[in-house]
């Protein structure tokens, strides 16, 4: 007739645990509030961080690399016009026409020197097809003064506001761009500034100068050759199918690379995000756990006599541990329920965008925008709940174990 841990009278234990929980209403309510706010903070802040990283990722990718890039082999080590590639042939064009492709752009990207009448700067000169480039990077929408390039033979350039400031020049002024052509000769030409753009990253504004692809091909004397093809997938989280198709259709001698190989900073940030979320959740939990342990220790201390009594009546130590842990689990489950509900209620209305322009200047350095889009992921909610239940239960074992070790006679005679 053993009444070990595996044949516990669940209902009896549940009744006892539930009623004990509400013996001290105020203490239970305070602990519940702490758990609820803690769980809310875990989920809410995770959603904010997810939104921020997602924003940095999509902006970072759109800022040039695209999800997939095609280059001449060796371009990564020597990004000059020498390592150009031919315009895509029929087979590659067919692969680029895949339904998974949202947009693609063939561009020239070479280092250059830009000079105004007052200053000179080193920049990255981009020769682009205005339509396809806009589809990939949305650059036309970033133009705040003047216009973006009209055609592939446009004779103007579009530079960033910051670069204009550095060069002490402005819209309508002429600048000179100097670079090397395919024969390693100096190629230079005067351009009129037809547009100024404002990027989320000032570094981009200072670095990237847009000219029309045809004009640049003429300057560099490279016929219809380009230096890279950037491709945007319809689903940035699942680019492997399109990557495989494009890789198969790409001629030998060219290399195809996914964004996570091109932009190691972004891919590392994404890879560490899950770990970061877990660490954040555990830190919040640790703060909570002190309150939880204290509450349970107080509950055990207040009920010493009663615990001695139920021991005397024949409750095994394992059952006493079970009963007190169940009390803790009930507390955690209620706290989780309220915390989850609070998180959903506060995050969902913000998913359409949270304006953080007042504090966004520092964040812009990392590529995050002034409007934050919190992203509530089911996986994060599950993680927070599992961590709280699992660690909460483990934490409550200490006070429960102390209760189970009480000497029944001393406990019953305690005051």
């Amino acid at each position, binding site marked *: *007739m*053993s*009444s*070990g841990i595996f*044949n516990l*009278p669940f*209902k*009896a234990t549940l*009744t*006892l645990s539930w*009623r*004990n929980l509400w*013996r001290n209403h105020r203490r239970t309510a305070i602990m519940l509030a702490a758990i609820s706010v803690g769980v809310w903070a875990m989920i809410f802040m995770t959603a904010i961080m997810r939104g921020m990283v997602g924003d940095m990722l999509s902006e970072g990718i759109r800022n040039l690399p695209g999800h997939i890039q095609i280059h001449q082999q060796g371009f990564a080590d020597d990004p000059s016009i020498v390592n150009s590639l031919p315009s895509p042939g029929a087979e590659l064009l067919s692969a680029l026409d895949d339904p998974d492709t949202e947009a693609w752009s063939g561009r020239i990207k070479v280092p250059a020197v830009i000079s105004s009448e007052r200053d000179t700067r080193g920049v990255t000169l981009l020769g682009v097809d205005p339509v396809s480039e806009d589809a990939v990077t949305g650059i036309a929408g970033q133009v705040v003064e003047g216009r973006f390039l009209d055609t592939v033979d446009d004779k103007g350039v579009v530079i960033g506001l910051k670069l204009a400031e550095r060069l002490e020049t402005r819209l309508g002024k002429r600048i000179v761009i100097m670079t090397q052509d395919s024969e390693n000769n100096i190629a230079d030409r005067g351009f009129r500034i037809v547009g100024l753009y404002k990027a989320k990253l000032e570094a981009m504004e200072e670095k990237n100068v847009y000219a029309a692809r045809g004009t640049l091909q003429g300057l560099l004397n490279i016929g219809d050759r380009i230096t890279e093809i950037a491709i945007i997938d319809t689903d940035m989280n699942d680019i492997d199918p399109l990557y495989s198709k494009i890789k198969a259709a790409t001629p030998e001698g060219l290399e195809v690379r996914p964004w996570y190989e091109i932009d190691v900073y972004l891919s590392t940030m994404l890879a560490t995000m899950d770990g970061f979320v877990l660490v954040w959740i555990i830190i919040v939990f640790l703060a909570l756990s002190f309150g939880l342990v204290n509450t349970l220790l107080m509950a055990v201390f207040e009920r010493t*006599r*009663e615990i001695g*009594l*139920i*021991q*005397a*009546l*024949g*409750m*095994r*130590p*394992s*059952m006493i541990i079970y009963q007190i842990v169940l009390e803790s689990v009930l507390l955690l489950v209620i706290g989780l329920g309220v915390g989850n509900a609070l998180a959903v209620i506060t995050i969902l209305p913000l998913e359409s965008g949270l304006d953080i322009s007042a504090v966004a200047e520092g964040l812009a350095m990392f590529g995050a925008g002034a409007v934050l889009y919190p992203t509530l992921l089911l996986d994060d909610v599950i993680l927070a709940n599992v961590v709280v239940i699992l660690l909460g239960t483990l934490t409550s074992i200490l006070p429960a174990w102390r209760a189970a070790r009480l*000497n*029944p*006679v001393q406990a*019953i005679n305690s005051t």
Partner: protein
Amino acid sequence: MSTIHCKQLCKTFQQGDVTITGLDQVDISIEEGEFVCLSGPSGSGKTTLLNAIGGLDTPDSGEIHMGDIRIDRLDKGPLADMRLHNIGFVFQAYNLIPVLTAQENVEFVMQVQGVAPAERAAKAREILKEVGLEGMEDRRPANLSGGQQQRVAVARAIVSQPQLVLADEPTANLDSTTAAHLMNLFSSLNQHHKITFIIATHDKRVMAYAKRLIWMQDGKIMTDTEQEPVAMGDVVGE
């Protein structure tokens, strides 16, 4: 078969620098169905002996046998099982679970034993009626008088008809009428169900119910005598 057999039981307590003798080489055998009163002055070792027999406390030396089981060597778990299935406790200070109703307190032991809900509810109602608490099943201890609480504790101790009931000053906080009713109930259970009773008491009226009277002093058994118990209701309550 000897229900309880204690050999050379010794127990000391430390209070600061002072060592207090709780039990000093106690030898005692109590047969199944006996009605025994332990008496003696405060500190004589009555409660210590009850606690040792009930497996609530372990002696420093000596042996305690219950039937074929040597209980002083049992681990906490099996000891708890032994108490659950074989022993009913009645403490001086009622000791009910405050968050449970009278009925739930009585059912508690049966719940832990795994008795079916309908059966234990019926038994609990019946025993509460027997101790005069009909209609008070749903009251929590805070809403019962001291006497009523003690009757609930008694009901809890005897509801599953254990082999042995250990009672420590069960009438100490009861009025004489309630005390008489309780002792008559004990006496009846002893006679009709052969439940062994060991009662530690100072109360001479309670002692009168015993068939065997053990007088303790300084942790030792000074006298162990058999007597003719009074008829039910003859002493307590007069």
